[in-house]
């Protein structure tokens, strides 16, 4: 989610490379995030090569913002 928040859109290879997760593990995470409407998954073609592109939704951005705020508040508490 944090990685996608800094991207307009990103593909599966980029996310796999940056997170260090396996294909199956990342797929499972992305499926759950899509089900929660936090991200949108789009299948495209770049030439003849299939491309799976992920894009964060406004709902996802709001959820991440709320999570960050909550974590900051927690860390500030004595």
């Amino acid at each position, binding site marked *: 989610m944090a990685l996608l928040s800094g991207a*307009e859109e990103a593909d599966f290879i980029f996310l796999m490379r940056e997170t260090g997760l396996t294909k199956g593990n990342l797929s499972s995470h992305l499926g759950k995030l899509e089900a929660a409407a936090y991200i949108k998954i789009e299948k495209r073609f770049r030439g003849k090569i299939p491309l799976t592109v992920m894009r964060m939704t406004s709902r996802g951005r709001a959820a991440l913002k709320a999570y960050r705020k909550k974590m900051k508040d927690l860390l500030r508490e004595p």
Partner: protein
Amino acid sequence: MPDIDRLSKRPGEYLWETGVAPLTAGLCFFLLGASDLLKRFLPQTGLAQNGMKWLAICAVAAVFWGMRSIKGRVVLPRGGYVEPWVPWWLPLLLLPIFLAPLVLDYVLTANGRPHDFSAYLDNDRLIVPGFAVWFAAGSLYEARKRKSSPLLAYGLYLMCLAPLTGWLPLSPTERFGLLQSGAGGPLAVFGAMRLRAFAKANPDPVDLTSGG
């Protein structure tokens, strides 16, 4: 807990690491600066001077188009595709900043003769070196923050370039051109080297499958 701020900066950093971003920025700076320096050797007519300016703008547009192609063919199949997120208000903020000098220049050169901006800045040799020092200080600060030795070398180089832009007998426009081309050239070379190293370290998956 993962550092969210750090992770959200990764898409932008990734394009910097692949060499695409410094190569694009460096080439654009270099072309715009070189066009300002070359104007000195051209006839002082509106056609020649404005022609050079528009040629530089076209060259910059060609760089953006070429880099888009390189990004699509070389970088993205190897390391993955990503488009950094740009807030909606940023283009609205940057567009007037880029368009204002062009509009101003067009208005001032409407009679067909090139306008001499140096008339406003005559006898002032501090503006361009000051700008170079500010740029160098920014590079050195970032170098310290990121612990990057190439950025540190670049900042020191800009510090050396700063007095040169003030000392040489040039017009203010040429001084600015010297700074732009002097700052852009090494950045473009650095970007090209990074891109080459990235392409070597990450073989094209299409080549790998056809080879195996």
